[in-house]
């Protein structure tokens, strides 16, 4: 193989048909309230972890739906499981349990 001094960029586009959806499917089954999340960001606004790290539970909830799960294991470690997010959720999504279920799913499918 020839080295031309550059490599072919990886496509940033989410290829939904080939996305790894095992985590969202597991979480949706175990914690069905994820389906009614409005992705409003109230959880992230109040998040104890999110105020001091780049942890973003709203983003994680959305990202796993489209199979964007890179660094997920490291990301969810930042959650302190305090439950403030659940308190503010306008739709009663069990956000805290979503983190626990993501953790389970990672163990099942990615370890």
């Amino acid at each position, binding site marked *: *193989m*020839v080295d*031309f*001094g*550059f*490599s*072919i*960029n*990886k*496509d940033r586009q989410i290829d939904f048909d080939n996305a790894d959806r095992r985590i969202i499917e597991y979480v949706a089954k175990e914690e069905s309230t994820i389906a009614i999340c409005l992705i409003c960001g109230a959880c992230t606004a109040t998040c104890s972890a999110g105020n001091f790290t780049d942890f973003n539970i709203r983003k994680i909830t959305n990202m796993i739906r489209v199979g964007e799960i890179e660094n997920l294991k490291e990301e969810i470690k930042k959650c302190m499981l305090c439950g403030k997010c659940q308190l503010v959720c306008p739709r009663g999504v069990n956000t805290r349990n979503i983190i626990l279920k993501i953790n389970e799913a990672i163990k099942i499918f990615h370890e």
Partner: protein
Amino acid sequence: MKLEGKKAIWKDYQKEIADDKYFYVRSCVRQNFFPGSETAFLKILRDELKKDVYEHPCHTTCTGIGYHGDVVPFDTAMTVVARQFALMTESGYENLVPSCITSFGLYTEILETWHHFPETENKIREYLKKATGREFKIPKNLAHASDVIFKFRKEIAAKAKHKLINKNTGESLKVVEHIGCHYSKMFPSKGVGGAEYPYVLTGMIEEWGGEIIDYPERRHCCGFGFRQYLVQANRGYSIACSKKKFDSMEPYKPDMIITNCPGCPMFLDRWQYTIKEMEGKTYGQNGEGIPVFTYEEVAGLVLGYDPWDLGLQMHQTDCEPVLDKMGVGYDKSKKRELIINNE
């Protein structure tokens, strides 16, 4: 795919294309990239169609590459273009035909700007007068060179020595058409067939016997992108764009690609070689690449011109598979000789 649906859209995007007396302006880069193409254009128009085409020796770059590469300001670009108009006016021509898609896009952008902001036009007239003493008239008709070949596609078909048909099977060749971004994405009404389903190359291919492939990444850029390609470190981005297109067209098993821009055939052709060298991946049949052509080269092949006169030996992805299918004769030994002589 419903052809009637496309036809209805094509109807909405008809443009006027002058039928004679062209002031032809060459591209900066095409003579290096595909050296036979502009010569073939002139030969087809002058010898086959008996048209009056004039080239001015003082024509310069339009600055489109510099303008899109962020090194030439718009005022400068407009003044240089005004000078081209002046050359045309002085030569007694009114119908401007640029060979380059980016020139065509830039000329269109400038004419539209002047249309909406006449004070800008007046300012540029003043600049040109001060700098060169020249004056100009706005072209009566602006058409890209591919528009002109499109206009005469039937006349060319009538003189055809070869068709875009596989001689052995009698089937139409499957053709991918790739339109340069600056042809109609900026001003859809200025392109034959508009921006979403351009008809300019499709019309030629249909007329010359080929079958068009409409694949999902048809509208994606070839990856030239001026600023992107020019820096080596950015070329991975450029090549990824071409690769996205190849991956998308591969299932349709295209026989060839035809383009109307200076950069697109360059990148679609050369990057196939690069991808092969980097990843071992090829997109054509039998481990070969998909041959890439300019529309003038295809018109030339249809008219029976010698492939090496058209400069096809300068392609990095070999054209022979298409020549064989079309039944175009060529002297194998001459190809290498011509390349060595060129080197």
